[in-house]
């Protein structure tokens, strides 16, 4: 039993807005949905499966199905933070494979930049069983936990701030070609190191952008895909895993990608050498470095060496990544970057990335999401996609 070849990515849409003070959250979801359905050549009436997460307003899938007038035989409101939307594609493919739906719509949207608090706010965390033991220490948003992970990685493996900076530099080289990117300026290692310390060892330029925005994906059954005239991308495999504090024996040197990655590669039946392009979740530079190790693109502890010398730069690097500029430069809509990871992987496979960063003859692509905190509990999701004939 596998999802390989049982579903296709038929539509993608990244909302062009990065500051959307005059839109509601529901409206951003709906505009993104309309964009992805139009890209697929489908309409809202064709949707029979709907997937959203904690950023969806109100009663989640019930409120949004109501807003958009969807008639669904399947809904999924998985919540694994920013990794959710990568996992959603796997869930949608599984539901399609089991005949539960044929046209799955996945949406994300929100406005942390202009509209106040993002998803996963105090209301939810106040009831968390761990809150009495994590809420007293002044953890500064997401960055604190990732900084702790970076601290331990540096201690165990000698990883340096210069190596982390290489990741931001590569993202900025790509973002200069994206007219919608929030930060389009190319930066140097020195500029990253000169940016203000936020939570050591992470500096401002080690952190992703905070943007309003949204995105949507349409995943369809093979019999639907065959009727559509647009480009189709095949779902080859997916894996996911939560990682947690392990009864107080947390190991900060790895993420859940050590489990989600092998599951995805196994299901897809491909190896690392087959991956032409990778979207790697980049909430912070350390997120990318650890994920590359955990997915097996290099040995544990060697991520710093791997990312040096332009390895992540497209085209030409040994593993071109985040050619839209990623969360570090382009977009991290509603503090959740998973959907834009999938979107850029699909663009690469369609040959629709910006010509300056398009990977030649991109056949197989990987998209990886990291949600929650590397410092405590997190979700990892890995997706492998391929050309229609792969």
């Amino acid at each position, binding site marked *: 039993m596998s999802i390989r070849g049982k579903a296709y990515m038929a539509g993608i849409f990244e909302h062009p807005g990065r500051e959307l003070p005059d839109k509601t959250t529901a409206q951003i979801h709906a505009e993104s949905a309309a964009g992805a359905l139009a890209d697929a050549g489908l309409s809202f009436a064709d949707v029979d499966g709907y997937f959203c997460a904690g950023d969806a307003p109100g009663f989640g899938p019930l409120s949004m199905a109501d807003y958009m007038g969807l008639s669904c035989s399947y809904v999924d409101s998985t919540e694994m933070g920013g990794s959710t939307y990568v996992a959603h594609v796997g869930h949608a493919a599984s539901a399609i494979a089991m005949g539960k739906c044929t046209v799955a719509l996945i949406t994300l949207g929100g406005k942390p930049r202009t509209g106040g608090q993002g998803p996963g706010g105090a209301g939810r965390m106040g009831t968390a069983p761990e809150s009495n033991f994590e809420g*007293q220490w002044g953890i500064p*948003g997401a960055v*604190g936990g990732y900084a702790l992970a*970076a601290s*331990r990685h540096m201690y165990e493996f000698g990883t340096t701030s210069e190596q982390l900076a290489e990741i931001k530099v590569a993202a900025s080289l790509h973002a200069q070609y994206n007219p919608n990117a929030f930060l389009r300026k190319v930066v140097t290692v020195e500029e990253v190191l000169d940016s203000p310390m936020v939570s050591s*060892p992470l500096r401002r330029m080690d952190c992703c952008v905070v943007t309003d925005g949204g995105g949507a994906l349409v995943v369809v059954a093979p019999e639907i895909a065959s009727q559509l005239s647009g480009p189709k991308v095949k779902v080859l495999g997916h894996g996911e895993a939560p990682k947690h*504090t392990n009864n107080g024996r947390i190991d900060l040197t790895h993420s859940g990608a050590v489990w989600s990655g092998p599951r995805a590669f196994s299901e897809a039946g491909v190896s690392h050498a087959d991956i032409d392009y990778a979207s790697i979740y980049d909430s912070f530079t350390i997120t990318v470095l650890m994920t590359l190790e955990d997915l097996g693109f290099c040995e544990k502890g060697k991520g710093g060496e791997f990312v040096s010398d332009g390895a992540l730069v497209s085209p030409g690097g040994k593993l071109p990544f985040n050619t839209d500029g990623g969360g570090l430069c382009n977009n991290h809509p509603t503090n959740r970057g998973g959907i834009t990871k999938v979107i850029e992987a699909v663009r690469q496979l369609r040959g629709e990335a910006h010509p300056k960063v398009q990977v030649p003859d991109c056949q197989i692509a990987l998209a990886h999401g990291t949600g929650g905190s590397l410092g405590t509990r997190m979700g990892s999701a890995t997706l492998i996609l391929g050309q229609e004939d792969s």
Partner: protein
Amino acid sequence: MTTTAEAGGLPAPEPYPNTEDAPFWAGTAEGRLVLPKCTNCGTVIWYPRQFCSECSGRDVEWFQASGRGTIYARTVVHRAQGPWRDAAPYVIAYVELEEGPRVLTNIIGVDPAAVEVGQEVHAVFIPAGAHRIVRFTR
């Protein structure tokens, strides 16, 4: 929430004990670090709760830990939010207790820039509303 010199100049948010973790807070009120241990497999449980994620046991006994540990990871926060804004720079760390668990906390009473992974620290008990929270110092 109160900020006192004893708290290391940091805000001290009050915890809200529940029926699972109340013995932990009863211990800190007396200046003792009291942890739950699984009566079935002997694992020391963190965070405090009445469930052992090692063996799925639901019976625990509480014992007094040494209060000593070693810094496993640390970050110096320079840009903080809300009531923490004026407290920066301050240190958040995972401290590995002698009994095994790695616990999130603040390191206080030392220059933040001098706090390093591997240093030995011990618990101090900080008034936080009607309770006491556990921070560490060298």
